[in-house]
């Protein structure tokens, strides 16, 4: 139910999703209609927050863009290319990702430097050059020192020995080491303690602003949603329910978002237990 008129010139959009649908386990008792016709245009340099309840399809949307699975219907265009049938690893040349689980984004038994050497070849042919080349190590030490986490002297340490917050910070740097056409952040602070979460959020905002990265960020935090980004997309039952942008987005307060969720809740007449879950998650 998108009410605004969409820009007809799709070439101006960095990401252009049209009418994508995805059903998991079709025809079984476990059938889940995760995406039920999503249309979305995201301009270059836009920082979009994706909100929604559990099961609303927000993570599924990110995974559809990343290529974790192929959509059943619809098309996905990224940087002017139709990537709908591109496998995940091929899309990676255009996309940087940070996952919810801090363990997902790094290779735990390999050193910090080796992890970055992998990120420095994202989407490029890898070849038989040395992974830890001097050209990489210089800028790497400098960039990691700027995190002020004291990690610049531990580049040879296994990344698995670091805390979740440190790993997410490094994963974010890895995802943006080569400037991606699109950055996907999938609740990347949800598994962290509040202090680490704040640090990673601050770092994310800094990197996104500095490199003017086109970003899609899923979050559960109303506070993050209102304080970050220039656009909010609220998803529900596999569709885009609301799309706040411009002045409307800037005026938005957490309470307004909660009201919207309440509205949804009343309309859907969710049972008591789901409402309790909603309270727990959003209040």
């Amino acid at each position, binding site marked *: 139910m998108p009410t605004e008129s969409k820009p007809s010139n799709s070439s101006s959009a960095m990401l252009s999703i049209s009418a994508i649908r995805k059903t998991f386990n079709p025809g079984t008792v476990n059938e889940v209609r995760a995406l039920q016709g999503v249309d979305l245009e995201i301009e270059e340099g836009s920082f979009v927050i994706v909100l929604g309840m559990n099961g609303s399809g927000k993570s599924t949307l990110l995974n559809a863009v*990343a290529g974790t699975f192929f959509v059943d219907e619809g098309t996905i265009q990224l940087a002017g290319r139709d990537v709908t049938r591109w*496998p*995940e*690893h*091929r899309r*990676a*040349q255009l*996309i940087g*990702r940070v*996952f919810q689980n801090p*363990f*997902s*984004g*790094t*290779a*735990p*038994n*390999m050193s910090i430097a*080796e*992890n970055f*050497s*992998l*990120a420095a*070849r*994202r*989407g*490029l042919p*890898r*070849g*038989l*050059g*040395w*992974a*830890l080349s001097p050209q990489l190590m210089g800028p790497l030490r400098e960039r990691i020192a700027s995190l002020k986490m004291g990690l610049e002297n531990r580049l040879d340490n296994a990344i698995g020995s670091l805390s979740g917050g440190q790993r997410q910070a490094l994963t974010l740097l*890895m*995802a943006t080491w080569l400037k991606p056409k699109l950055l996907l952040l999938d609740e990347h602070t949800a598994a962290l303690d509040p202090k680490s979460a704040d640090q990673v959020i601050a770092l994310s905002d800094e990197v996104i602003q500095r490199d003017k990265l086109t970003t899609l960020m899923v979050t559960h935090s109303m506070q993050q949603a209102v304080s970050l980004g220039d656009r909010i997309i609220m998803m529900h039952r596999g569709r885009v329910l609301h799309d706040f942008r411009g002045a409307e987005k800037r005026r938005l307060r957490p309470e307004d978002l909660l009201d919207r969720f309440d509205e949804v809740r009343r309309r859907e007449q969710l049972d008591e237990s789901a409402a309790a879950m909603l309270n727990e998650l959003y209040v």
Partner: protein
Amino acid sequence: MTLLIGALTIGLILSLLAIGVLVSFRIFSMPDITTDGSITFGAAIAAVMLVHGVNPLLATAAGALGGAVAGAVTGVLHTKFKINALLAGILVMTALYSVNLHVMGRSNVPLMQARTLASYGETLGEALFGGRTINVLGWAVGSADAAVLLLALGAAAAGGALLFLFFRTNIGTAMRATGDNAQMIRALGANVEGYIVLGLALSNGLVALSGALLAQYQGFADAQMGIGMIVWGLASVIIGEALTGTRSLGLTIVGAVMGSVVFRLLVAIALRWGLNPNDLKLITALFVFAALVLPSMVAKLKRTRPGLEPGA
């Protein structure tokens, strides 16, 4: 003394098998039973080419290449056709048994008259040490045996060093990451399936190289020679990890080479003491079983009896 030299030489030749198994078992956590077929495949290809007078180096390389192809087939069965890794290995190993018989034309190819790398060793031995025997710490050692041992040492060192260097390149690093965190390396643009195929090709190439060298050392290729070799490789890797630890990649590779030599020496000593050769595979299997299970059992014991834990 001849027994010791022989055990060392075979241990070094089989260390190439051990580092091959290290790649499949420790990098990809995949006990790849293709090994049993590909070691024979490498031996068979090399032996038949040698009998036809092909240059020994070329024949050895061809044997290794054959193993690499076999490993790649296992990789494709596993990744493209989604067959369980163990089953994919079993299928290729079984198929290779027939292939090997076809390559050899019979179940055993002797290399008595052929010029092999071992006969290079004899020539080298005469050039290096002159006489028929040399004196090492008071023991008389055949110069040919000593030279072949040196060649085996060179092959093991070169194989280990090249593998180590490969794992420090961009491709090699990505291959290690494939086994460590596939989701991550896929998100960084690597074709995980491709790396698994490449890794199994590398693993079985090393295994087949080991087979090609073994055939030349023992003077024949045999259709049965691969039976249980994966377990042998696992035993070497596990002994190696006990010797050098797993903290760094270089140490792990050195460990696998040492593990292979140590294991071969232990076997030679046990056989000398009267171990029935028929029991060898049984004891190897029991050893690997114990090595896989004991660490977790010891840890469990420590948990239930905290008094045993140092400093607890």
